[in-house]
């Protein structure tokens, strides 16, 4: 049985507060500033990635356990796949004659 006591969950609390703040910040950027749409998308997209990282590292403890390294490789590979699927599909389907807009 584990004997180590874990103290106050600062990690979780900080992660939670950060994610709330990042969400509000994204809303602020989106509606209260007059950046161009492209800039807004880049900024809020980056904020989303930060939030995802907070979940992964502060809540899901991705690096924990014997397979921490493998977990990280697995997630990086999946992100690579996600980028290929998203940007690949958009590129293929919206350039050239196949675009139906």
């Amino acid at each position: 049985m584990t004997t180590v006591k874990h103290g106050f969950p600062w990690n979780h609390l900080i992660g939670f507060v950060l994610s709330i703040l990042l969400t509000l910040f994204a809303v602020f950027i989106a509606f209260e500033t007059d950046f161009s749409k492209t800039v807004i998308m880049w900024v809020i997209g980056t904020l989303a990635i930060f939030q995802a990282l907070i979940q992964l590292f502060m809540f899901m403890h991705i690096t924990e356990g014997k397979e921490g390294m493998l977990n990280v490789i697995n997630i990086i590979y999946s992100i690579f796949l996600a980028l290929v699927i998203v940007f690949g599909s958009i590129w293929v389907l919206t350039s050239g004659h196949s675009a139906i807009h």
Partner: protein
Amino acid sequence: MSLDEFFVTGDPLILASQIAIGLTMIGLIALVTYLKRWKWLWSEWFTTVDHKKIGIMYILAGVLMFFRGGVDGLMMKAQTSRPNLEFLDAQHYDEIFTTHGVIMILFMAMPMLIGIMNVVIPLQIGARDVAFPKLNALSFWLFFVAAMLFNVSFVIGGSPDAGWTSYFPLAGKEFTPGVGNNYYAIALQIAGIGTLATGINFIVTIVKMRAPGMTWMKMPMFTWTSLVTSIIIVAAFPIFTVALAYMTLDRLFGTHFFTVAAGGDPMLWLNLFWLWGHPEVYIVVLPAFGMFSEVIATFARKNLYGYKSMVFSVVGIAFLSMLVWVHHFYTMGNSASVNTVFSLTTMMIAIPTGVKIFNWLFTLRKGRIEFSNAMLWSLAFIPCFTIGGVTGVMLAMAAADYQYHNTMFLVAHFHYVLIPGVVFAVFAGLYYWWPKMFGFKLSEKIGKWHFWLFVIGFNLTFMPMFFVGLDGMSRRMYTYSEGLGWEGWLGFSAVGSIVMAAGFAALCYNIYWSFRYAPRDIGNDPWNARTLEWATATPAPHYNFAKIPEVTRLDPYWDMKKKGETGLKKSDLKPVHMPSNSWTPIFLGVAFGVVGFFLVFEWFTLAIISSIGIIIGLVANSFDYDEGYHIPVEELEEEERAWRGDLK
């Protein structure tokens, strides 16, 4: 819906099959009852979680599906053997090439390879089972139920008929009403879930359960390729899951993912299908590469040439395989830059593949080659597959592909890849690992008939297709007129397919003959092999290894034999933990099948009611805290003493 809409009627061929299926089922049930084997079937096979038995069931199902797909192929060959034949009409021809393609890829190639992986991988890495034995059984039953669901379409409700690619808009409700294509969407969905689970299972097995000392670079080649295949499965199958879900929604629930008029995009289907479909090709071909590597190393009596470059090329192929999908639809109207980029990535795949070909050739060089059947298949693979590969590079050039696209040239190409790459490999694997499963070898003599008939028949069948293709015959044509200069080639090709079928018959006869007459006293290492699966008894005991072996180098068993370290000490024996049988996998499989069937017919109330079955299965599974059992040392001792003289 009236009964004659439910059953397919009006075609004598189909009526004959309906009667045959009915009689076979009654016959089987009667036979099992007569032999009083129900209990045995249930406790030894239906509820088993033993990877070896699951593997055998996969292989058995795969052979059956090969038969079904092969009959489809022969019927197509018969129909096009002469101009203007009316053996099959257009509709029937469409149905047959569709079921042929789907069955061959998803219900023949996949289960055969996954079956052999199941039998071999845990043994080859010195493990007692896969990481999640119950999940493994579930994967099998999902596959099996899906295969049955798909196969029943031609007698109940009607076959899918929009090709194995089922492109929209053709595959939509508007152009393909009826339930045929629902079978496609739903059966493949069920099979896909099972396959995804297999992928996860084998990754974890290979990562976490290797024998002590077996580091990454000491893993046998087949283990490597199976690992990479599993990774590609996990990467690619979810895409297909989504694509099939869209298809189901469009067909059953009236959404407009793929209908242009309502803002859908049929090209989205093509894009998603091939995002999965191309990796799928590598999923089936990579384990085959691994099997050839094992067989060639064993029968050349040398270690695999360029092991490291082999590993890197497999990983490279996995990586590139996700980046080439557009080469299946260059003619869709993509921008020039899209086609250019995908031409390049496609051609790049030829590099790691070429590396592998040369590695096999260099392994053979100066080897003391033994021409066993497994080796013959591997040797025949190299030139035949190279033809497939080289024509593939021709197709990879987008500009040239405008000429080849959707012609018989393409059909010839992918059969030259898939038949040597998958079927030859499965044959090689079966001859090689057959003793491991059943304790006797398949006859080498009958095997020679099988080999020569099949290889010659294969080349006779598909070589002519390159030429009719270049002569302008497009694929999926059910008939053609005289005087196009095709009939000579196609007649020739039809004869070839009969020769190939004779080869398959020789295999079946070989299995029958060997079951009855082949000698049983072949020892544990009949091929003088190199890897761990041969370090235990043949056939493998249910606990695989009495003591988990320790690995110090590549080809560990070869090393152990050289050093005389194959023995076992009594003091090393400890009780072995085993997983218990479970009814939930087969139950869940059947439940998925029932829900699937109702969905195919769009009987939603019944589907919802019967999904309670799935829920029961899942809940029962969650509450199952069975921890397995232990095999006592005495039992291990007895079983080990039975085959090895050297238990000290």
